């Protein structure tokens, strides 16, 4: 253990000891050999079981008797075994071998300075008491010696701060700003009122003119409608007149034409022979052809007769000629 503790004896017989401060090692059940301990296992002193805290009146201390009962020993052994089993998996720890029969292990302090472990705590009483007060005269008032000059000063009312004077600029600014704002607002309102009035005037004018325009439009429309109607009427009238004139002319002409028509027709018909006396016609139609036919027949007969005669005559003549010729 690299302890930097050293104690040495002085020449005059005093012994001094000093060591560097080192933290308390956390206790381990079985101390490993010092050579293997490379690192101090620091532990928090507050949680160190070796530190006594709290009420010490019911402290659990080692029993003073060295010979415990066998039953108690048995209990302790059981507890130890249980604890041993709990920690068996952590680390195999070397334990002190069991005591031989008839013997027993006993804890012993091995420090340099032995302590008496008992539940009787050594305490000493100490008292102190102040002495009774002796009568003493009261101390006189301490008045230090006067040094320097005495000078007095007093601030009269109204000297440092004159409200009326100071408030003037602030008031001016406040009032000025308020009045300016108010003026601006009033001007704005006036402007708005002006605008509104102008708008109203415009609207009225517009309505007026619109009404006038519409009226004129309507008037125009009506007039033009009226005109058209009149024109149409006039056209109608003209047309009727023309028609009437045409009709009259046609009528006159027809009359004139037709007046001549009947005699002309009759004449033409008569000319064409459509009027006939039936007897005459009949005579003409039936009698005359028969008559003529008969006449023809008769004449034919005569001709034939004549021709026959002529023929005979010729024949005779020829015969005569022939006969005479000789």
């Amino acid at each position: 253990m690299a302890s930097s503790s050293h104690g040495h004896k002085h020449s005059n017989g005093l012994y001094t000891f000093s060591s560097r401060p080192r933290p308390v090692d956390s206790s381990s059940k079985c101390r490993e050999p010092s050579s293997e301990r490379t690192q101090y296992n620091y532990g928090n002193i507050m949680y160190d079981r070796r530190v006594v805290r709290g009420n010490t009146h019911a402290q659990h201390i080692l029993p003073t008797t060295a010979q415990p009962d066998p039953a108690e020993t048995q209990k302790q052994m059981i507890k130890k075994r249980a604890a041993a089993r709990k920690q068996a998996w952590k680390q195999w720890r070397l334990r002190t071998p069991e005591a031989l029969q008839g013997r027993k292990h006993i804890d012993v302090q091995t420090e340099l300075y032995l302590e008496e472990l008992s539940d009787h705590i050594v305490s000493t009483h100490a008292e102190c008491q102040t002495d009774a007060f002796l009568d003493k005269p009261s101390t006189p008032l301490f008045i230090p010696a006067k040094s320097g000059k005495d000078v007095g000063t007093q601030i009269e009312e109204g000297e440092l701060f004159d409200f009326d004077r100071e408030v003037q600029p602030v008031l001016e600014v406040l009032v000025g700003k308020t009045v300016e704002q108010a003026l601006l607002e009033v001007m704005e309102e006036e402007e708005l009122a002006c605008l509104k009035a102008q708008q109203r005037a415009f609207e009225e004018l517009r309505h007026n003119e619109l009404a006038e325009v519409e009226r004129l439009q309507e008037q125009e429309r009506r007039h033009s409608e009226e005109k058209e109607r009149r024109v149409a009427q006039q056209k109608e009238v003209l047309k009727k007149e023309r028609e009437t004139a045409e009709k009259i002319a046609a009528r006159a002409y027809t009359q004139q034409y037709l007046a001549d028509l009947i005699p002309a027709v009759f004449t033409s018909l008569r000319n064409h022979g459509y009027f006939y006396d039936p007897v005459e016609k009949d005579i003409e139609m039936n009698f005359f052809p028969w008559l003529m036919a008969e006449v023809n027949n008769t004449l034919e007969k005569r001709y034939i007769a004549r021709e026959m005669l002529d023929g005979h005559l010729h024949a005779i003549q020829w015969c005569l000629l022939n006969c005479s010729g000789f």
Partner: protein
Amino acid sequence: MDSTRAPVAFGRWDVPLLFGRLQQPEAAERLRSLASLCDLMRDPERLYRTVTGGFLEQLQDLLKDEDPSVRSKTCELLHLVTAHSIGRQAVLSSSLLPSLSQLLDDSSSSSRINALRALNCLALLPAGADALLCLVPKLMLKLQQQDGEDEDDGDDGDEEEVLLLSTISCCSRLDALPALASDGVSLLGRKLTRRSPEVRREAAASLMELSIPVEGKRQVCEGAVLPVLVGLLQDEDVDVRTNAAGVVMNVAIITAGKLRCLDLDVVPVLLDLLSKRLEEDERSKALVLYSLRALTALAEAPDGRRLLLQQLPLLARTTEARHPDIRRAAQTAVRVVTWTP
């Protein structure tokens, strides 16, 4: 420090920090940040920075928050944003419109009113009115629901109606067909008889916009709205009278309208209005103009011409009015009355 407002950082960091605070889980904290933001947004510089910094997208989540006061404050913030043109453009280009329109059905009335206010400001811009045109049927539906509620709903119900009506009239200025398609004429006709003059005024204004296209004029003629309007011509509020006269002026342009107006004997009423209001006050100038135009339109019908020929001196007097527009209108009226075919 005011406990209802969150602390505001200095300089350029004020708006981003407050917007960062809006992500916190407790509603009270968010409410305080929103209240501070509302105060800050009245300044145009900060508004510009907010808009160009693109913080408006974060408001999208807040519009769907569970706490109604948070929603209502967000709508108020949006209303302040839309008070300036750059804010309006930003809101239009972002995707906040659908969420806003969903809030119109919200249960708490303050968030509804604030959302309506924001939409109203948006509708004043033509591009905004264009974007809101698709919302018009929904707005008409809400109007109908309002109709079903009690008459004495108090100021809140009235304000909602007024805002709804003014938004509808702004959108209809651009294009009146969606409103007409959702049966606008009869709905607005019912609103003409409400107690509060603002509601009547806005309803009459919307009717005036709706009666500009021909379809609208026909519907107004066919519905039972005209008698109510003629009654409104004698209302106490000048604006209501003006708007009613405007509707009559528009309706009298078509022939059916002329005939119905003449049936309802509207000419004496209009002449009455003219003679009373010959003084040059700004508000009544419109009334005079509209009445003159209505009379001009009515004078084109033969019956109307006959009636007005008798009143020619009155019209001649109006030609000497100081305002050039009124003079012109009166001259046109005289010309039309004395025209012969």
